[in-house]
């Protein structure tokens, strides 16, 4: 169970210095009439302004948004990697900012970067994370074996990760994130770089994890691919320009946008409010 309320985060982005112009020199120069005031050494980019959603257990919640909408930043805050400037996040009722380690113990995160250790075998990569979660090596190894069967990667287990294909790397990273059998699963664009068959296999695995036999996990899944959401998600949270702009099931969102095609509905929901508020676009 994951609850996120009013999340916000901005970053300082350094602006490049003009050629031959030191900061003191530019500040001495009088600004042209009507020009913006002299820019500081860095500007702030608001990656996330106001994101809120609830992801209950036994459901797949999709975070849908265009590139740069703030999905990855939101998930990084949820994984206690970045501290938010405003808002609250609770996982199974535990505050992420106040007790990050307890939250991480209950969460399996497949982040944007999913690097493996190339000189270790897939099994060693997975068991290492199990051990970091405080599991006994034997237990972690047995769990790796079970998950490998589920994701059809038993043959990979004792191969070194150096020569893995994109799909093999993704599977290993996913199993690694799930090794401690977390109640909450957070996946950042998990189908990136996967072929059709691997994507279908992943979808089946996620459906199983959602089912009562699979443990009725709370799954949060970020993507910018419409099909994924339509086929998989019980609930969709549309994020655009750092804000939650719509929430509901796919039929609910279609009704809200008064469209029959989900892609059209998404474009309407994600971009129209910004247009109306004069934020982006003509």
């Amino acid at each position: 169970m994951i609850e996120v309320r009013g999340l916000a985060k901005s970053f300082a982005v350094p602006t490049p210095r003009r050629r031959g112009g030191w900061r003191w020199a530019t500040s001495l120069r009088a600004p042209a009439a009507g020009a913006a005031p002299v820019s500081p050494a860095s500007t702030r980019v608001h990656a996330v302004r106001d994101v809120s959603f609830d992801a209950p257990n036994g459901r797949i919640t999709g975070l849908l948004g265009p590139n740069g909408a703030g999905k990855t930043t939101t998930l990084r805050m949820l994984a206690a990697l970045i501290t938010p400037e405003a808002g609250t996040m609770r996982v199974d009722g535990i505050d992420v900012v106040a007790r990050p380690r307890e939250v991480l113990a209950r969460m399996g995160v497949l982040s944007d970067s999913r690097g493996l250790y190339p000189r270790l075998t897939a099994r060693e990569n997975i068991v290492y994370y199990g051990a970091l979660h405080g599991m006994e090596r034997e237990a972690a190894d047995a769990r790796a074996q079970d998950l490998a069967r589920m994701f059809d990667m038993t043959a990979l287990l004792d191969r070194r990760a150096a020569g893995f294909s994109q799909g093999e790397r993704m599977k290993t990273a996913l199993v690694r994130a799930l090794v401690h059998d977390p109640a909450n699963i957070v996946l950042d664009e998990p189908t990136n770089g996967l072929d059709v068959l691997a994507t279908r296999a992943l979808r089946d695995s996620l459906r199983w994890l959602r089912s009562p036999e699979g443990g009725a996990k709370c799954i949060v899944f970020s993507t910018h691919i419409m099909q994924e959401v339509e086929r998989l998600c019980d609930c969709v949270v549309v994020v655009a320009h750092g804000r939650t702009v719509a929430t509901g099931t796919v039929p609910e969102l279609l009704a809200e946008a008064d469209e029959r095609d989900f892609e059209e509905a998404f474009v309407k929901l994600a971009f129209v409010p910004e247009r109306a508020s004069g934020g982006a676009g003509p």
Partner: protein
Amino acid sequence: MKRSIAAVWVVLRKELSDALRDRRTLATVLVSSVLMGPLVLLAISGLVASLESRAEQREVYVSGLANAPTLRNFFERQTYVVKEAPPDFEARLRRSTFSDPVVVVPADFEAALVRGEGPVVEIVSDSANQRSEASTARIERVLGGFGRERAVLSLALRGVSVQLLEPMQIEDRDLASTQTRATRITGMLPYFVMMAVLYGALTAALDTTAGERERGSLEPLLMNPTERWALVAGKWGAVACVSVLIAVLSCFSFLPGQWVLRSDTLAAMFQYGPREAGLFILILLPLAAALAAVLMAVAIRSRSFKEAQASSTIVVLAVSLLPLVNVFDLGGEAPWHLWAPALAQNTLMTRVLKGEALGVDQVLIPLVVCVTLTSVGVWYVARELHRAAVK
């Protein structure tokens, strides 16, 4: 706390086995740092042995031997074997295919000698040909002896005391012990061992920080419920272990190295046994720990392994250049030497080689410096870890 310590152990084990599987890098480090020292030692011993054997040979090459029976007689009385020089000796000396200086005697040598005209005898060698240079001084001494003998005989015939020729006597007295003298040759040994520590730590430190960032494995690693300090401590421990391992191999590689020393004099002077190797390792342990932490701190700011290599150059340069203060003996031993890492360890190891005792302050000062560097380095890496993961 108990769980964090268990996590340190987990990280250390993983990083260690990861580093030890990087066979190509390890092989390069082993060849460059561990084998290089003994090989250089062997080369030096070979050179010293060849100089020694030449000194023992007591051979002299003369061009125009038939012109100087007196000189030949003198050489033979000094138990030298006199040989006629090959006709193309100049060309062969230049090409370094002939390794002895040649005494060139003019055609009218005997007649000029009798008339007291001071005939010119040349000693031909090539200063670019080091082996021929080494014997020149010896031949010069023998020829000087010939000149003195002639002078003494002439003076004695005229009834003048020989003492007039030597109004004073010069004697050498060398204060250095055998071991101290040996450090002139073996002084580079601590330097090689130190390079082994440095290069042992370098790759592992870069791989565990910048390499982890480049692979994209740092972000998922931080999504485990492990304390940051535990992750960093485990990583640091592994890097320090690899470095110490290479240092141990390097220190012990000189033991078999000295058994095959070809020069007996060098072997007698070179006091390096298991005790010295053990002391070397004790001296190097804190340095390995500090270097591991400092290199990690430098590398954590870099996004890629390549960038980290560039930024660690300054550490590598400092560790390589500081001991040279000792090697070149710039201004003797100064108190500040003990406060400079690498230089301090070099000073201590040189003392061990000289067979001198180590004082408490000499051990404590470098230890305190290394412990401080280690703590600052580990603290900095732990602080930067999150920032590095998301950038």
